[in-house]
Every structure is written in structure tokens, then in C-alpha cells.
């Protein structure tokens, strides 16, 4: 049989040879080690300077919104893991909260505390990962190795809780499935006690490092107007002079009971964003200490409930399912047909490590959402590259992409 080779034409479609200006068109990606995934950038260059940038996304578009329309609500939970796969619990939480708001459910306090712990652990994990990859892109291999070491500790804790390292699915609609394991608090405390020293280690390596400063300071400046106009959220917005943290401004869970501050800066450059990530890790550690006390109080007050009691929407506890006939029947219906939330729509925003993670759910009373829109922060943080990159030089591209902290599971969904 004759060999059929591929039909792909040479990859010149974006290059025009008969231009008479000095513009070079550089194709960056979609498989580039510094692109944090599958980002493709078409850069128009004058010498080394970028005059026009055209980000091309969609190389990880997996059709999650379409999947949501074909799945019952609980079935969709593992899919949310794969959105921002650096911090999966925050996606689980965003979706769970949206559905809870839709059906008007109050979650038991103990579950709230455990959720907050998971969220903050995820935030530290995500920021550590951000630090590791950005430092690696800029050339600081040591920081990469250090930050991954600490991240592995946190992964151990999470793994002890839910059994998965990366894709947790640790939060359910209506609460959390499990109580934390015995060693959880001890491990967490060991980690948190070490964390300030670890953060100091990274800062010692980076804060006064000449190369780091040259690639970070005064590079990638985002003005306040631009950040608002592009819908930036999270550290991207806070580095540009808007102190907006949804945990603080529109508190969900028990964030109004804990004390923490929102670091922000009006510099707007890469270095400001780097500082905000570092400070946020410290704030998360502060929150985690407080949640540990709150958990101890829950144990003391004998608040053992982990799932909300709503027989129409949430299955009963395992013990009830195994002993009560009615609970078993209702569990069977909920698993096979799915819950049927009321007719209506809801948009719920939570502060994920990357920014505002919103879930818009339009329910028509059926077991499947009629429309589910995932508002992922990275989508707009990628879009801003269009306006941000022109004027910069080629090496700046890598550090700017690094500090935007984009994750392509979330950009393309």
C-alpha cells in the first residue's frame, strides 16, 4: 500500500513575503514551554519590539459549557476540576455555591470551615505553582524546585483528604462529603509554621535579584482604566490600583468572620503582581490559622453535620441511605434523575486564586442546566495581552505571560 503522508501544508499561512516594511511576524506557540499551556501568539515585530500582538486561544477548548447542558448537576462537578487545574477545589466550590444559591441552601458550619480550609490551601498551592513556573520561565530554576517542594506537602494534605492530588472534586453541592482526617490539622500546622520561612527563602532569592528585577520592574504595566475595561480581576486588578477582593467585598462562606487584609498596589507592573502573589500567600496562611480555630470550636460545640439537609436536592448521609428505606429511594432518584432546581437564573462570583470565577446558571426546572456560562478570569487576562504586549520586547513576553497567571483549562474551557 502506498504510504499516505499528511496533507498539512507548510506552516507559512501567517507570513506574507512581499511586505515592504520591516515587520517580522513571529508565531509563538501553541506548543511553547513558556506559554503556560496552549497559547498561540502572533507577534508583529519591528526589530525586537512588538508592534501588534494577536493572541489565539482555543487549543484546549473541550466544550465544557456544552457538557454542562447534557449532565445533571452533580455529574458536572468533576468537570469543573479540569478548568483551573492548579486549584481545582476553588472551581468545585464556585459551582457548588452557584447551585446552592439557586436552590437556596444553607450549608452547615462545619462544612463551611472545611471548605474554607480547602479553598485557602488551593490558593497557596496555586500561588506556589505560579511562582515556580514564572521563576522557571525567567530562569530561576532554584525557585522552581523550592516552590514545588512546598506544593507537594500541600498536595499530600489534600490527597489525605480526598484521595486525589490534582483533580480533587472535594466539595459537593450542599457541603463536603467527608470530615477532615486526623492528621490534617497537624500536617497543616506543620506546613503553616514553616511557610513564612519558605516565603522568605523565595524572596531572598528573588527580591533583590538583578535579573529578576530587570525582567519584572516597569515591565507589563497595566493602567487602572485598562484593567477595569478588560474585566481583570484578582491579583491582576489589585496590582493596578483597585483593592477589590470578593472575599472581602461580597463575603461568602465565613470570610466575614476571619481577619485578613487585601494587598494591593498601584504600580501595575510585573513586579507589583509578583509582590501581591507573595503577600496573598501570607494572608491565606493567616486565614488558615483562623479556620483551624474555627474547626476546633465546631468540634467543641459538637457541630457534626457536613451536608445540608434538603431531601429534594441532596442525598441523605451514607448511614441513612444504608438504614432508612426512604433515604435510599430518594438517593436513587437523585443519582439517576438528578436534582431539579427551581426555575430561575443565578450568577455567583467567587474569588478563585486567579480572580473572579463566576458561574451563571439558567435553570428551567429540569435536571440539566439550560445554560451554564463559566466566567473564568484567565480568559480576560489572556485577552489583555492584545493591548499589553505592544511596545514591549520579545523577552518581556515570557515574563508578562508569566505574571498574568493564565491557565488554559480555564481560558478555553
Amino acid at each position, binding site marked *: 500500500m502506498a504510504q*499516505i503522508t*499528511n*496533507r*498539512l501544508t507548510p506552516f507559512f499561512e501567517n507570513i506574507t513575503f512581499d511586505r515592504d516594511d520591516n515587520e517580522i511576524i513571529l508565531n509563538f506557540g501553541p506548543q511553547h514551554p513558556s506559554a503556560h499551556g496552549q497559547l498561540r501568539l502572533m507577534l508583529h515585530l519591528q526589530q525586537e519590539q512588538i508592534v501588534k500582538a494577536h493572541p489565539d*486561544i*482555543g487549543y484546549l*477548548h473541550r*466544550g465544557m*459549557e*456544552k*457538557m454542562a*447542558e*447534557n*449532565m445533571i448537576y452533580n455529574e458536572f462537578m468533576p468537570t469543573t476540576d479540569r478548568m483551573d487545574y492548579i486549584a481545582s477545589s476553588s472551581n468545585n466550590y464556585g459551582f457548588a455555591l452557584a447551585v446552592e*444559591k*439557586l436552590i*437556596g441552601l444553607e450549608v452547615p458550619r462545619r462544612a463551611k470551615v472545611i471548605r474554607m480550609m480547602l479553598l485557602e490551601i488551593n490558593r497557596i498551592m496555586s500561588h506556589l505553582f505560579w511562582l515556580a513556573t514564572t521563576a522557571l520561565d525567567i530562569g530561576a530554576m532554584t525557585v522552581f524546585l523550592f516552590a514545588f517542594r512546598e506544593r*507537594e*506537602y500541600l498536595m*499530600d494534605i489534600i490527597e489525605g483528604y480526598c484521595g486525589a492530588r490534582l483533580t480533587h472534586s472535594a466539595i459537593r453541592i450542599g457541603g463536603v462529603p467527608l470530615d477532615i482526617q486526623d492528621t490534617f490539622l497537624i*500536617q497543616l500546622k*506543620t506546613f503553616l509554621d514553616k511557610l513564612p520561612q519558605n516565603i522568605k527563602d523565595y524572596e531572598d532569592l528573588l527580591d533583590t535579584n538583578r535579573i529578576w528585577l530587570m525582567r519584572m520592574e516597569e515591565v507589563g504595566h497595566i493602567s487602572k482604566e*485598562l484593567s*477595569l*475595561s*478588560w*474585566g481583570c480581576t484578582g491579583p491582576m486588578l489589585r496590582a493596578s490600583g*483597585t483593592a*477589590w477582593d470578593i472575599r472581602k*467585598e461580597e463575603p461568602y462562606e465565613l470570610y466575614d468572620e476571619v481577619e485578613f487584609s487585601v494587598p494591593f498596589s498601584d504600580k501595575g507592573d510585573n513586579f507589583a503582581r509578583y509582590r501581591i502573589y507573595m503577600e496573598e500567600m501570607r494572608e491565606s496562611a493567616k486565614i488558615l490559622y483562623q479556620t483551624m480555630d474555627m474547626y476546633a470550636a465546631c468540634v467543641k460545640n459538637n457541630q457534626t453535620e457536613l451536608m445540608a439537609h434538603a431531601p429534594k436536592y441532596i442525598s441523605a448521609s451514607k448511614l441513612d441511605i444504608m438504614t432508612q428505606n426512604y433515604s435510599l429511594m430518594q438517593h436513587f432518584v437523585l443519582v439517576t*434523575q*438528578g436534582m*431539579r432546581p*427551581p*426555575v*430561575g*437564573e*443565578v*450568577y*455567583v*462570583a467567587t474569588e478563585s486564586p486567579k480572580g*473572579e470565577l*463566576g458561574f*451563571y446558571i*439558567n435553570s*428551567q426546572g*429540569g*435536571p*440539566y442546566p*439550560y*445554560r451554564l*456560562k463559566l*466566567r473564568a478570569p484567565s*480568559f*480576560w487576562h489572556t*485577552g*489583555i495581552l*492584545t*493591548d499589553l504586549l505592544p511596545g514591549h520586547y520579545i523577552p518581556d513576553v515570557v515574563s508578562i505571560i508569566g505574571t498574568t497567571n493564565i491557565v488554559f483549562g480555564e481560558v478555553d*474551557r
Partner: protein
Amino acid sequence: MRAYTPKDNVQAKPYYTDRFYISPQVPKEAIENDAVFAADLAAIKAKFEVSDAYIQVGQMVVYIHAKNNYGVLELLRDELEYTQLTEMSAIDWLAKENKFEIFYQMLSMNKRKRVRIKMFIENGQAVNSVNELFRSADWSEREMFDMFGIEANGHPFMKRILLPYDWQGHPLLKTYPLEGDEFAAWYEIDKIYGKEARDIIGPELRDPARVDRYDSERFARLGFEVPKGTVITGHEPKTEQSYQEEGGVFMIKKFDKKSSVVIDDPQR
């Protein structure tokens, strides 16, 4: 006789619905309950026609006419301090009333309020682009075009964003199946190898529950491995997979469990 399958909505259907089940509603509150929203709505109503407005789950929902979307958003941004367009997209109501519903999710950081502006457009009608007001609408409108085929007038680069430029169909329409149509199923094969390769490579296996023990091409046989494409007779010898050959490997030390230390506590 074949069972009738509706063509206008090919999404998953619940296999059982109680005919007498009346779904509850997410409660809608009157605008007057919230002074900030009431003032905002009054400002919108002073200039534009508002067909409906209510508060649902703490957010104001305002229905406007499609031709006014630019004006309303400009008013919200410049006078009412709604400085961010958080999200916008569409909902497909083609099967029911041949319409799309478009929503703009707005955020005011000073007031700590969120407003959802909604409007209906006919099938095939284009919307006014709000790209000049909010840069975030640039990509959102492209995504909306990609997913629903709704074009935005005045957009500088109205092309697909998530799917390739040569894609056919708009996936979030209810008429588009989850697993894709004929074009989607063969997209990568047609593009890379050409149409004649379809027979050689074969169709996609979309059944996640399919198991075939006689198929050695696609299924592993743990403990009874055979080379790909072998005809399975059922008398395959038991094979044990180890990471290293029994006799040892040239210049490589074999891992010996007895002489190794096992660390129980990874954080030691």
C-alpha cells in the same frame, strides 16, 4: 416505526418527568426593596425603554430593547459607576420562540452591586458591539459568535475564537449535538490525512462503556498482554509485567526492596 426524536433540541433529556410536577421558582423581589437598584433603574428608565426588571438572588435583572444595548451600557458605565463588564453571552431560545437572549453581567465596585442587563434578539439579527465601551466585550462577542453565530455590528475582528476558523456549526446551539456532527467527527482526519484516510482510521468510538475483550487494538489485557492486532483466542499465556527484565540489565542496578529504606512521613 422509529421513535420520534426532536430536531430542534438534541441535548440530553430527562428519561422521566412527572407530568404533574410544577417546578418552584427562584424568588423574584421587587426593585423597591433595594434603594441603590431603585435609583439605578430610575436612571435607566429615564432614557430607555425597560420591559421588565426585578431582583433575583441579590442581583438586579433589567430587560431592555436590543437596539439600546450600547446606550444602556454607556449610561451604566459613565453615570452609574458600573465600571466592569464581567461577563456576556447568549442563551438559545430558538426552539421555543426563535429568539436569542443576550445578557450582560455588570459590576459596580463602588456600590458593590451587580446588574444583569438582558435583551432578546431575533434569529439572524446582529447586536451592537460594546467593544468600544468595554474592551472585555472584544473577546466575549467573538466567543458569542463562535458559540451561537450571533454577530456583533462594529466589532473590529468578528472571527471565531475558540474553534478553528474553518469550523462549521455553532456548538452551543441546542440543535448541535454534544458529540458533534459529521464535520466535527472527521475534522482532524480530513485536515491531516485527507478524506480517503477515513476508511483506514475508522470512526471515533464514542461509547464510554464499550468493552470488547476480543479487540486487541483498543483494549489492554492486563496480565495477558499480546501485541497490538493479535487475534484473541482466549488461551493467551499469563505475562507478568515488571519494569525490568528478569536477568538484570547491562550496567543498571536492579531495585532491591529489602535493602531500601521506606520513608513513611514524606514531610520528615
